[in-house]
């Protein structure tokens, strides 16, 4: 390791940080991510701007905190460092303005109060158990403001990584055992190494923020609250695998991200953090936004490469894998946005910190999302946390009205109330149930099991790109059969459906088709008596 180089990039970062220091002043930020906009955040923002017109108090946008039950959130930062987070729904804005002008922290609608040392008030069940690392400033800063990012230690990881050099970074990533957060849990360090060994240049890095899976939205929150973290992680990843160009691949519905990323790139270019000789080092990096086409399939790691190249989203045949032949036939490191966002923290805070969070085989934190509970949203929790903690403790689900928790998306599995001790990590399996990307849905007691299967297979049928026959036709056939059952017709036996599911699983090209049949088989596995009863009654 070259000490000189390390200090040089850190020195460059320090002076950059100084240049970006902001004067101390009261500040009010309204979460204005895509999800917040659906709940009137833009109105709140413009109301506040009107109320504070001519005032020294600065009004701005923030990303989403993940607390979807409280959309849009309002955050107050006092010049003395006090901070508070408020539920923006029905917040008396006039009162807020008056209190703030008087130098007081408002009380109404309060969600969380932070002490001056930044610790979260323990009383808030949604926030308290979280270990917020990639989401550390989510909703508490302007996502497109480089100054905000630098103020909380941004680019410390990159500056250190540049000092470590490619080999050092690669070594660190491998030792960290950072596992891909898209759901499969493949070690990122290994992927980066394959990409580097892929030979040909130029090479590319792609952050996958497509997140087409139904009822999963953790990447949306991350993408729209911590863009710089993702970009910094991509840069470190690029350094490790010898790439010099990156694409942030974003779901086409994430309108706020479409706005903020170009702004962020512009700021980074102006600050010398993108382009040639980043932070005065020999590392060059270009980065751009790529917006996905509609459809679940465009998040499939090879299909998204097709989309970036300007073609319809269709999975590619493997081998070759993207690490060997990805974008334009070049070695390409594709990782989930969450994976990238964790990288700067690992480099900046070190392996000891990283390994102190989570489990031995799944170190670190995981973003999870929960629906069907009073406190819906995205949380960052340590790996290994029990599903019950998320669903019941943090989400506030009523255990008496819980039929099951669907986990791992529409092709994942179901945890019955008796199985909620299920640990959230990459290696735990209970039948079809697995953590996957971290999406969870609480299913109420009144819901029919067959309807769960029907919704799942409908989603898969609609998401099938149509490239390969077993997926295109198999999802269609299965939907018709399950629909028949849901309507009380004896359209198929459980064995018929299981065999069809097995054919799709064995012969489809990509993960979508391979798991599509789980829509039925996972339901059958979890609710066998109910389905058997239905089959018995069907005519």
């Amino acid at each position, binding site marked *: 390791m070259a000490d000189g180089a390390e200090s040089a990039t850190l020195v460059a970062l320090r002076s950059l940080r100084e240049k970006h220091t902001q004067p101390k002043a009261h500040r009010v930020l309204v979460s204005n991510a895509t999800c917040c906009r659906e709940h009137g955040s833009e109105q709140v923002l413009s109301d506040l701007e009107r109320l504070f017109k001519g005032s020294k108090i600065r009004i701005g946008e923030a990303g989403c905190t993940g607390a979807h039950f409280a959309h849009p959130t309002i955050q107050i930062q006092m010049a003395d460092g006090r901070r508070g987070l408020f539920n923006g729904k029905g917040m008396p804005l006039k009162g807020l303005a008056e209190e703030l002008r008087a130098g007081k922290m408002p009380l109404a609608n309060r969600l969380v109060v932070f002490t001056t040392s930044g610790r979260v008030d323990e009383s808030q069940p949604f926030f308290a158990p979280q270990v917020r690392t990639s989401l550390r400033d989510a909703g508490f800063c302007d996502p497109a403001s480089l100054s905000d990012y630098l103020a909380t230690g941004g680019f410390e990881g990159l500056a250190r990584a540049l000092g470590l050099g490619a080999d050092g970074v690669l070594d660190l990533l491998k030792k960290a055992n950072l596992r891909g957060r898209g759901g499969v849990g493949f070690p990122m360090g290994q992927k980066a190494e394959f990409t580097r060994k892929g030979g040909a240049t130029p090479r590319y890095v792609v952050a996958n923020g497509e997140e087409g899976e139904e009822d999963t939205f953790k990447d949306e929150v991350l993408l729209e609250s911590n863009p710089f973290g993702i970009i910094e992680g991509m840069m470190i990843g690029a350094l490790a695998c010898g790439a010099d160009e990156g694409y942030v691949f974003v779901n086409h519905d994430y309108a706020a991200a479409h706005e903020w990323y170009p702004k962020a790139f512009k700021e980074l270019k102006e600050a010398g953090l993108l382009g040639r000789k980043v932070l005065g080092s020999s590392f060059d990096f270009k980065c751009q936004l790529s917006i996905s086409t509609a*459809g679940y*399939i465009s998040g499939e790691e090879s299909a998204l490469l097709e989309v970036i190249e300007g073609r*319809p989203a269709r999975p590619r*045949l493997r081998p070759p894998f993207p690490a060997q032949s990805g974008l334009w036939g070049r070695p390409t490191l594709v990782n989930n946005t969450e994976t990238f966002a964790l990288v700067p923290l690992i480099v900046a805070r070190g392996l000891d910190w990283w390994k102190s969070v989570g489990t031995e085989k799944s170190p670190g934190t995981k973003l999870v999302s929960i629906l069907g509970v009073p406190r819906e949203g995205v949380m960052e929790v340590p790996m290994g946390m029990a599903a019950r903690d998320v669903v019941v403790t943090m989400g506030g689900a009523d255990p008496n009205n819980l039929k099951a928790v669907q986990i791992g998306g529409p092709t994942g599995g179901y945890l019955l109330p008796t199985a909620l001790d299920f640990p959230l990590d990459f290696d735990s399996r209970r039948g079809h149930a697995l953590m996957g990307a971290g999406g969870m849905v609480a299913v109420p007691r009144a819901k029919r099991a067959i309807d769960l299967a029907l919704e799942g297979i409908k989603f898969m*049928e*609609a*998401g*099938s*790109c*149509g*490239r*390969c*026959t*077993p997926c*295109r*036709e*198999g*999802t*269609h*056939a299965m939907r018709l059969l399950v629909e028949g059952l849901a309507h009380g017709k004896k359209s198929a036996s459980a064995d018929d459906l299981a*065999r*069809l599911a097995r*054919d799709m*699983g*064995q*012969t*489809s*090209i990509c993960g979508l088709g*391979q798991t599509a049949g789980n829509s039925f088989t996972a339901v059958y596995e979890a609710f066998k008596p109910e389905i058997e009863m239905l089959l018995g009654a069907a005519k």
Partner: protein
Amino acid sequence: MTKILLNGQPVEVPAGGTILDAAKKAGAYVPTLCYHPQMSPLGNCRMCMVEVKGWPRMAPACYTKVNEGMEVTTTSDTVKEAQRYNADLHLQNHDLTCWACEQDGLCELQDVIYKLGIKEPRFGTLKKLKPIHKDNPFIQIDNNKCILCARCIEACDNVQVQGVLAIKGEGQNAMLLPKNTTFDDSGCVYCGHCVSACPVEALQEVDAVGKGRDAEFTHVPVVCVYCGVGCQFDLAVKDNRVVKIQTRESYAPNGISTCVKGKFGYGFLSDPRRLSVPLIKENGKFREASWDEALTLVASKLGKIRDSHGGRAIGTLSSSKCTNEENYVFQKWVRACLKTNSVDTCTRLCHSSSVAALRTALGDASATGDIEGIGNSDVILITGSDTTVSHPVIGTRIKQAAKKGTMLIVVDPRRVEVSESAHLYLQPKPSTDIAWLNGMLHIVIREGLVSKEFIEERTEGYEAVKEAVKDYTPQKVEEITGIPAKDLERAAIAYGKAKNATIFWSMGLSQSSHGVDNVHAVINLALACGQFGRSGAGLHPLRGQNNVQGSSDFGALPMSYPGYQDVNVKANWEKFEQAWGVSLDHQLGLKSTQMVEEMHEGRLKGMYIMGENPIISDPDRHHTEAAFKKLEFLAVQDIFMTETAEFADVVLPAAAWGEKEGTFVNTERRVAVTQAGLQAPGQARLDWKIICEISTRMGYPMHYRSPAEIFDEAAPLMPALAGLRYHRLAPNGILWPCPTLDHPGTRDLYIDSFPVGRGKMVPVQHRLGVEVPDADFPLVYTTGRSLFHWHTGSVTRKTDLELPASEPVAEVNALDAEPKGIADGDWIWVETRRGKIRCRAALTDKVPEGVVFVPMHYTEASANTLTVTYSDPVSGIPEFKFCAARISLAEKGEAGRKVWGWERMVHTKGTE
């Protein structure tokens, strides 16, 4: 070789082979639908899934490469279950009314269902029918049959390299459709690759709908009647009519490739205007006659001219559309019976310059390599060739190579379509070829990129050429040609550094008053860089007519006997006098362009033409017509009443392609057999039989039983074909040289030496064409072809090809048109000092400012009404590509007329 265990039995396949290769070798049935042997595996249908020991999932056999020791099962219950399910799933989305489908019997889905023994589709079949997409006269899509295997898309994207088709919509909404709205606006060239690739006939020839199923057809393997690529395919014939063209992947050189002419241009065969009875002109009008009367008249008229004025008073044109056997018989008749060497073909009008220069410099007048070798070039330079229009299937091979990384450089005054695939496009001013070619050599020499070893060991004349190109600096060349110096440098350096480089050219170089010098400039460059003797390196003059190579090879040339043996060399004339048992004329015959002049002078009194149409194809139509009027006697033997036949005293109806058997030689020297499977109309007779009859009546009896007998007489007389015999040619022909009976033929020429010994480098200097634009006629007039028509149009204009291209369309640069008030689609006069023609104007930047282009196919706007008769002094080729012209508005265009995409090919792309 890699060894695997397939169903417990060891199988060896070449390294890099797939499980499917292994299964095929072992004879294990693995069903496939999206797999096609001529294309990359697609992996879409998932019919070929097999089990591999130790793998978590089944593997697609078509795509999975074998590893040493791999254990594969194709017969297990798991495999059978997957095959059965996936077949059933295909049927769910298929209109299973086989009895109503022309693909019945050929359908690959039907075949798979049959072999898997499926009686009742588990998930039903497609019931809710989707509309048939039909927007053009050639190809339609029936999405009710489509199984979305995407073979057509692969064929379009990576075989034809056109990118017209797409699967639109996802999942259950997926439909195969043109990328934009119609085939036409998606850039379709109607080559038919998609139709040929389709396993279920979801893509189908419009013309073949309802006209029968495969079991009702006889299949006639033929070599295409149009260009020199020499594609082979089958005519599917029912009730003596061609229903459709069927490709076979085993056929060389094209496999499943065709172009629109080959695929859809067969309608002329059953055209009611076919000649079917001999005609004799009396009092200016034709009347029907018996064969005996007509043949006797021809024999007596020609005999009389020969006997009273000598053979020199008779001119003849043989045909580059006729077979080698017919050309051989024809020239034998001319030489042995008419006692003259004045036999020529339209090669005079296309590649005689190339033939002259190549024979002088290297020895053989042909391409140095084969079509398959195109993939082995790392640099391809195309000049003076609208390749994708005139030689479409070779165009596809070049586009494929360019897509895979071969650097493609296109140099042409017209921004021809293939330039869109080029890495570098240079646009010289017309008639400045020698300047830029010399300039390239100048740069190659300056950069030290010449092959010193090759120059020393295998060439002569290098120093003189080096001196000749000394002054052609990039700057000077830029002044002459308009090619930016830096672009020329890039092209020259790329060519100079290339391991294997091929130069393709065509009429753009040869049809010039300095055509021979143009070709010498090309040869000089290739010789200096040592680009000979390897696959992918060399020279490729793209031959025009399907048998222009063969007609020349078989002696339809005024200066040489079959096999390019000069008539004025004693040893040669003695050889042929002995072979044919007669004395022969020993002086050079007249070239076709000289024949016209001799008619004007009154020295040439009798003319016999087999299957050519010089009134349209020769330069300066008025001049040609005046000459023909002076003839004492003209006989024409053809399949249609052509513009030339109208002048004849006797017209003899001939059998056409598909009605006669014989051999053709394509542009890569492939001698291949074309079969007969149709009855000629009425009394029409085989060309060679007609000639034999006339010859016999004139006192030189010729009796042959078959084309095979003729071929076997001719081949031993030609050194390069001495080893060929008719029976050796099936199925895909043999590439000459083939000197001995056990020789396999030759793909690449000149591996160790040139037939002339050392390759001759000939210094040449830039000069412009003869009639340079001036104030009165400020534009350069240049001619060529359109994709949809062939030559004089006498054939293609009687087919469906006429539908999209029924009007003569002149390409005019907007900068020249707009000041004259000419808008796109207006009718204009294109005028030169020799006349004017009325064309539809297409405003385009395909031609640069100052150039107007007219295709040659339209008798109503005959391009050669305007051309000059100046010709190259050595080859006699006319200058079809350069004379002075002007344009004026004739009539405003009609509103709302259908404009075809090809007409609209306005290029706005950069050159990179």
